[in-house]
């Protein structure tokens, strides 16, 4: 028992609706939440410490394991930071492919969110539909880099390899059919009475409060704040594509759902534009100090083999200094703050994790609400505990 006859209820860390190992300590007055205290860290692996002892390239696989349902965007934010540190220009084709895969990743991340979130609230069917399309995307990722969840496909200076044959055709096929699939999900939920009752007016946060709490991504935009880094501070050539930034009005669970549904349609549109405009040319910057030599040359010439070996074992030094680079990941602003002391390993490797900061506003969103709303609100924030705990 807590003070004044309130009850303490322990939710998680082993609870299906906490999306991983999140524990929330709820102080309840009947069914009403008096205070919610999230308890995190169950998945802490010391990732930032690990990275300080790896070369810059060796850190890329670590970033896959942050937000593990959006590996591509994690890779992107990290390589952008290293490239900024080096002052490296990436060729247009590599930039376009990065945008293509980031947007596909956004769709797949939002789809997994949609399925699990709807399932939490009691709608079983959207999960099956959403995973069907998500699998299409993961299959494309497997074609590209052999891996569905942990791609490690982006490199400092470009990409690990060019797109495989048939990928562009598969992408086009996806964009042709995807909007109709989104209509399918929306038929199940958007005007569903139970869905509306469970989500409208729940977990409200105002735009001003959302900014003050550091909320980013769809959670911020649902509070009627049109802030998207792809528009506000474009990176990797996003300024070349036309898309709109959807916003909500009320900042509740329903608006977060609506914003994400509109976002996947926009992402689909960006994917289509990238495929239409796909430039040719190199996929790696021409800078032998940091860029691996092409594989076929490594197999034929001893100089390239030594070059490859040297880069893989010793890495490359970076100029002393500090940079911060960030992107609009599916969850919000994902940033990397790197401090270099001029050696081949980062002196400080800081991840600005969107889920971590978005979750810190949970107590404000659920205070005074019913315990069943806590499930809806946690789902609506779209958290990944691997990124929160690092």
């Amino acid at each position, binding site marked *: 028992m807590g003070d004044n006859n309130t009850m303490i209820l322990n939710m998680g860390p082993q609870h299906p609706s906490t999306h991983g190992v999140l524990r929330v300590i709820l102080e309840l007055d009947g069914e009403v939440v008096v205070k919610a205290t999230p308890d*995190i*860290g169950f998945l802490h692996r010391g990732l930032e410490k690990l990275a300080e002892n790896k070369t810059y390239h060796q850190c890329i696989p670590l970033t896959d394991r942050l937000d593990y349902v959006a590996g591509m965007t994690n890779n992107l934010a990290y390589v952008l930071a290293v490239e900024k540190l080096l*002052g490296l220009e990436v060729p247009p084709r590599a930039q376009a492919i990065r945008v293509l895969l980031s947007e596909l990743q956004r769709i797949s991340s939002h789809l997994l969110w949609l399925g699990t979130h709807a399932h939490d609230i009691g709608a079983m069917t959207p999960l099956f539909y959403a995973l069907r399309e998500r699998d299409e995307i993961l299959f494309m990722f497997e074609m590209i880099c052999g891996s569905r969840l942990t791609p490690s496909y982006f490199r400092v200076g470009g990409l690990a390899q060019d797109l495989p044959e048939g990928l562009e055709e598969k992408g086009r096929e996806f964009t042709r059919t995807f909007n109709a699939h989104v209509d399918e999900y929306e038929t199940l939920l958007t005007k569903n009475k139970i869905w509306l009752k469970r989500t409208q007016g729940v977990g409200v946060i105002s735009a001003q409060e959302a900014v*003050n*709490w*550091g909320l980013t991504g769809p959670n911020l935009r649902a509070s009627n704040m049109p802030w998207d880094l792809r528009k506000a501070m474009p990176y990797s050539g996003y300024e070349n594509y036309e898309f709109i930034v959807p916003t909500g009005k009320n900042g509740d669970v329903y608006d977060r759902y609506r914003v994400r549904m509109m976002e996947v349609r926009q992402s689909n549109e960006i994917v289509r534009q990238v495929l239409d405009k796909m430039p040719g040319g190199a996929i790696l910057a021409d800078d032998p100090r940091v860029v691996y030599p092409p594989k076929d040359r490594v197999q034929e010439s001893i100089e390239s083999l030594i070059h490859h070996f040297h880069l893989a074992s010793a890495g490359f030094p970076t100029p002393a*200094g500090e940079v*911060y680079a*960030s992107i609009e990941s599916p969850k919000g602003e994902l940033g990397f703050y790197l401090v270099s002391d001029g050696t081949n390993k980062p002196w400080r490797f800081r991840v600005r994790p969107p889920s971590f900061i978005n979750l*810190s506003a949970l107590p404000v969103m659920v205070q005074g609400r019913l315990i069943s709303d806590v499930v809806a609100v946690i789902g609506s924030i779209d958290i990944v505990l691997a990124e929160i705990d690092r």
Partner: protein
Amino acid sequence: MDLATVAERVKKKFPEAVLEVGAFRGETTLQIRPEDLLSLCRFLRDDPEMAFDFLIDLCGVDYLPREPRFQVVYHLCSTRTRLRLRLKVSLPGTDPKIASVFSVWKAADWMEREAFDMYGIAFTGHPDLRRILLTPEWQGYPLRKDYPLRG
């Protein structure tokens, strides 16, 4: 308004607080005297021309064996001017302490707790300063450079 003007204006307003202005790769960093942090942050948030409404990131850095050993780094962003600014304060190796900016940006809540958890930097005025990722009984501060890599 660009970053150079921002730095200029802050320097004019707080001539003694800004110790150094650094620019690297298009980013601007202000090195701040620790005791002036809070008033400077309030100014940066509330001044209509600055309008740094976002505290994007806050983290510690350990520069062992340099003295002052620790730094706390603040990444600010303005949704109005679309500018980013970095603030840094240097803290001594023994008993590092700095005012909490929770009263300015609530986003500092968990980020300050994390910096405390990982570096042992105390944020005075934080409403609930305790470990966040590690267990309460944990010994030591893992991201310090003298913390052993293996157990």
